[in-house]
């Protein structure tokens, strides 16, 4: 028996699975009906307790392919029911076995819909998955004493740069807590990718002579990584940039816009986003608790390119002059719809275009000289 205690004092009693240890984190919910393996291994969930709103988790087991990182950053998993007899040809182990191996605690057999509604109404909260014999007051004081994290990116970013070689465009991928899906999209297109730590300076990045810079997703508040904001500010105008999720928010901050924390965020794979240029709406995969403030864009060089159909929040930006664009959602899917995977092609097109322009510019320049 375990209990899940929210900072507002709500208690859910359930069964433990995964690791036996206790854990404190920010409790959030994800509405996807498939893709739990990708979600659990998505580094953007670092420090969080994920509630799956779909009640049956683990049905197709854990396979060797669908990880988004090697060591999941999630602090805990909350489900209605976890499956102890998965069925799928790729199944390797149960979710319980996997979480045990990764030392991640879980709690099951609770009313996850009730929990979801509480989060929806009160916003994300701190919570603890605790042993059921621990008194509530004790849990609550532990929760109060535990501050929210502010170094998540540091925890999940790569420590050293590494190369995934290819014959195509040279991409520097800044890892703020990158999902493998992003890397997969570039290798699929035969790019030469250098993954660098989050605090890599602009100078170091440019020294790699990238054709384009990809700013990855990552956990937490973008304002917690000021060094990256500075780097991006320096990169804008120098090289084509594409930002996803945290990378998108960092571009906004680097351009003078502002971000803020959302009540309970967007976490799921059914989020509609409207592209203001084409008028098309796409179903996207999302995972973010912060967003760019729409009104803060006014004084910047950025323009709104995509919005959430559900709540009108900022979902996409592009630079008015320079080859920079970004989206709040995950075009690499993993999990979720692949409807916006073309953005990676657009990025490569943007690079191509930029290179032609630069060539022409330099030719003009040499003619002038």
């Amino acid at each position, binding site marked *: 028996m375990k209990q899940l205690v929210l900072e507002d004092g709500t208690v859910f009693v359930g069964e433990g699975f995964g690791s036996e240890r206790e854990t404190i984190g920010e409790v959030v919910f994800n*509405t996807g009906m498939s893709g739990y393996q990708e979600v659990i291994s998505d580094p953007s969930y670092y420090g969080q307790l994920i509630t799956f709103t779909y009640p049956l988790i683990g049905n197709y087991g854990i396979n060797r392919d669908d990880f988004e990182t090697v060591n999941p950053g999630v602090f805990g998993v909350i489900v209605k029911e976890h499956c102890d007899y*998965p069925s799928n040809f790729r199944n390797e182990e149960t979710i319980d076995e996997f979480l045990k191996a990764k030392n991640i605690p879980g709690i099951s057999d609770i009313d996850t819909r009730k929990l979801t509604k509480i989060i929806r109404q009160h916003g994300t909260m701190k919570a603890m998955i605790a042993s059921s014999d621990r008194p509530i007051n004790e849990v609550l004081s532990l929760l109060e004493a535990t501050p929210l994290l502010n170094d998540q990116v540091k925890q999940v970013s790569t420590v050293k740069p590494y190369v995934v070689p290819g014959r195509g465009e040279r991409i520097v991928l800044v890892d703020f807590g990158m999902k493998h899906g992003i890397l997969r999209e570039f290798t699929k297109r035969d790019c030469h990718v250098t993954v660098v730590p989050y605090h890599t300076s602009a100078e170091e990045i440019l020294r790699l002579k990238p054709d384009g810079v990809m700013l990855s997703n990552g956990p937490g508040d973008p304002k917690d990584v000021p060094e990256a904001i500075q780097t991006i500010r320096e990169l804008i105008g120098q090289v084509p940039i594409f930002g996803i999720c945290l990378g998108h928010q960092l571009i906004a901050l680097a351009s003078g816009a502002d971000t803020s924390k959302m009540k309970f965020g967007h976490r799921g794979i059914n989020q509609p986003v409207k592209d203001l240029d084409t008028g098309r709406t796409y179903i996207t995969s999302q995972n973010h608790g912060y967003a760019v403030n729409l009104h803060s864009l006014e004084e910047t060089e950025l323009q709104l390119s995509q919005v959430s159909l559900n709540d009108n929040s900022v979902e996409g930006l592009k630079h008015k002059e320079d080859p920079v664009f970004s989206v709040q959602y995950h075009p690499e899917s993993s999990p979720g719809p692949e409807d916006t995977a073309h953005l990676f092609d657009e990025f490569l097109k943007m690079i191509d275009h930029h290179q032609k322009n630069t060539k022409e510019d330099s030719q003009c320049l040499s003619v002038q000289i």
Partner: protein
Amino acid sequence: MPKRTDLTKILVIGSGPIVIGQAAEFDYSGTQACQSLKEEGYEVILANSNPATIMTDHTFADQVYMEPLTLEFLQKIIRKETPDAILPTLGGQTGLNMAVELSESGILEEFNVELLGTPLDAIQQAEDREKFRALMHEMNQPVPESEIVSTVEQALDFAETIGFPVIVRPAYTMGGAGGGMCDDAAQLKEIARSGLAASPVSQCLIEKNIAGFKEVEYEVMRDGADNKIVVCNMENFDPVGIHTGDSIVVAPSQTLSDREYQMLRNASLEIIQALQIEGGCNVQLALDPDSFQYYIIEVNPRVSRSSALASKATGYPIAKLAAKIAVGMTLDEIKNPVTGTTYACFEPALDYVVTKIPRWPFDKFAKGNRTLGTQMKATGEVMSIGRSFEESLLKGIRSLEGDTEELYLSYAEHMKEEDLNRRLKKADDERIFLIAEALRRGYSIESLHDITGGIDLFFLYKLQRIIQLEKKVAHGEMDGSLLEKVKKTGFSDQQIARLTNREEAEVREWRRSHGIRPVYKMVDTCAGEFESETPYFYSSYEDENEAIPSGNKKVLVIGSGPIRIGQGVEFDYATVHSVLALKEMGYEAIIMNNNPETVSTDFSVSDKLYFEPLSLEDVMNVIDLEQPEGVIVQFGGQTAINLVDGLTKEGVKILGTTMESIDKTEDRDLFEQLLNDLNIPKPGGESVKSAEEAFLAAEKIGYPLVVRPSYVLGGRAMAIVYSNEELSSYLETNASAHNGHPILIDKYMTGMEIEVDAISDGEDVFIPGIMEHIERAGVHSGDSMAVYPTQRLTKELEQQCIDATTKIARDLNMKGLINIQFVVYKGTAYVLEVNPRASRTVPFLSKITGVPMARLATKVLLGKTLKDEGYTLGVAAKPNGVYVKVPVFSFEKLRSVDTTLGPEMKSTGEVIGYDQTLEKALYKGMTSAGLKIPTQGSVLLTVADKDKSEMLDIAKTFFELGFRLFATEGTASVIEEAQIPVEAVGKVGSDQRDVIDLIQQGEVQFVVNTLNKGMRARSDGFRIRREAVEHGLACLTSLDTAKTIVDVINAMSFSARAITPMEGVTG
């Protein structure tokens, strides 16, 4: 994009009568479409021949044409109404086929009528097997190896090259009609022939068998701006090989990883894009359980049965939005009607598990071939929602209203292992119960996976968990925590009662004493992400209850559950009208029902919808929570009536139909006493308990006799017997049916049957209409053609019926609707049956007479009087014209079912025909019912001895109309004696050309065949009737039907006659 303003008038084509493969789901989609278009300000013209539907109420369209859905009549409607556009994609396969026919006829071009929704090309690309395959190849979408054939020989040749088994899929048919799986050449020969006959273009696809693959469906939508979404995906419990309409289906998919989910989602979206469909589309796919290999099985370029299911499963109203898309609106500008705040362009997220279980008609057709394959056999379905698969499945089983409320068939306990294995291997309607039995016997799930041809281990494991828990309950000590656990798993009180040797009521008390009660969760399309106001709930044993009862005065209306023979969409019509009346009167109207195909389970109809099984337990749980002022059962057919006893015992107030009135009309002795007290004539009869008593009674009353068990539902196990031999055969075959209950033996009176529907307020009685049946008493009222107003009933007899109805209703102190059937015999109207509830004819009569019967009855139930509502006593005024109700059967889908009409109901639906004369009305009705009425050709007569003299008139008229007569020897000699030319043909199996050859070679247009000796299913007559059905011929098994058809042909045609001087003039 905003809606189009260049259109003002839109013709919506409905799906016609309920048949297997096309049921109430199209009433739901059609009603939504009509409402949706009206909401946008369009003038809606509706064509649908089905009078039992809600959509054909004039409130849902501006003009309603209940005319035959044939090219001829639709052209007339188009000429008259000159609509700007037609919307055929919400009327099932019928609607789509009509769209193709209309386009090809050129009338759309002539009148400049636009086809909305799905382009003609797309219909053809999806429906024409060859074009479909070509498109899939072009898109690089895999399809199973296959070939289009148009002859049986081609089919055989191709099968040789790819090897057996193969699947035959006829082109342009619905519900897989005429197709099937073939294991060898003999089967292929047979099925390919019927498939080619069933296909309007004589085309079949012979396909490589991919049985054992997972079957997955995607419901997708697209708008004119290229926005595309998946509303829902579903996984079949049964692997490929069983028609999806006959499969247990779970939503969302359970065993697909996200990669597989997205792979199939991409394929589905590419297909809807390639077909340029603006609206809904259904894609069926097969997925190899051991790799990423998949195949596209089928695409329905329209709203389908699965979309109705997906709408109810997710809360996302597909048909409503498809209609808006058809007029140019886009998904990103239409509000999500569930949340009211977000838009329709998103993909619903479920936080529950939905299970659909088909409802098959084999309780009625015990002798029918119950094996499941690629041809759909289910008449309806139930849906259930739970927070676990186990809970969802067990609620579904409960909703079926079978013999038990659990995964348990008592007879299976004694089944021999080889029989069990055989039936596990070759799926039939009871397979899920047999899997449970096998698990009880200790079969491993791996062996079951193999025996069943690949049911996924995930599902089998879940079933095993249920059985393990069951054993724990049976053998262990039951305490509060185990009780809570089993309730969470979905066990019914009845199941716990069986396992612990208790009474169900005892379990209920015990459970209540432990405070174990369900809570209700909301269906909100978004898994709780957004606030929703949807009043759509399901039960679960969890913490938080979201269905907060209001303080309003409220009434609970019990729906009628799955569509089955004898309980069709008519009851849904009445349920919906009752709810509308309650709302009008200021009550909070609460519906409980479990049929995903219906309008009543559209959450926007009632104030609150509980999507729940209709067992006493589940109904009581809702009553305990809501505390309604009363419960209305009289619109929910037998389903709701069956609850009255239990509800009464629980102290629940039933509005209208009381247990006393049910007892008085259903209990033999009480019923006799009632009629005797009121001095109302009834056919003499007795109730007997043994064969000896039966023969004694038979001697006393005299043959022919109507025999039936005292518990009769829709004429089940009822028969007419003409001799001791037939009686003894009946007693043998139905030994289990009466199962200790007495058998009722009544005098069979051969006479005209009359049906009266009345509304009573306890004091006064008002009769909206009296109907007369074409077929004499003995044919179930649901299977006979009925005429309104009566044509042959004398004023005096009519008065007898009125008086009897009034007396009975008063004596029963009946409130609401009552239905009485009479037989007119030698100048007297005898009461056959009294039903203290809404009957099948309520929608038909309501529409014709303009009396809103269900609404009026509801008002009466809540204390209004007929006088309050402005109705006077007696019979309502009759409108002009003649209206006939013609039954529709689905025999071509049900192999081995005898088509002969009798006291047991067999029809699945009905149509209406109306015009100025009886013959014209009949012509329309029969045409709507799909009967072809040629005015020339040949007819085959083969009738029983008792019918031979009566048959002569019919033969004579056919001859005079220019028909060539064929007859079997006995029949032929009678015809010859009457100096009418006839060609004698051999009996079945004779050396010369026999009747079967005649039918197979397509030489006759009609077969008139009456039942020789009852109860002999495999008789020659049976073969003749089945051959006729399988060759699409009208087989008339009642002489009354035959005579009527002859009259219609007579009225529609002219006979050549030499002029003869009138007698006496030349004298």
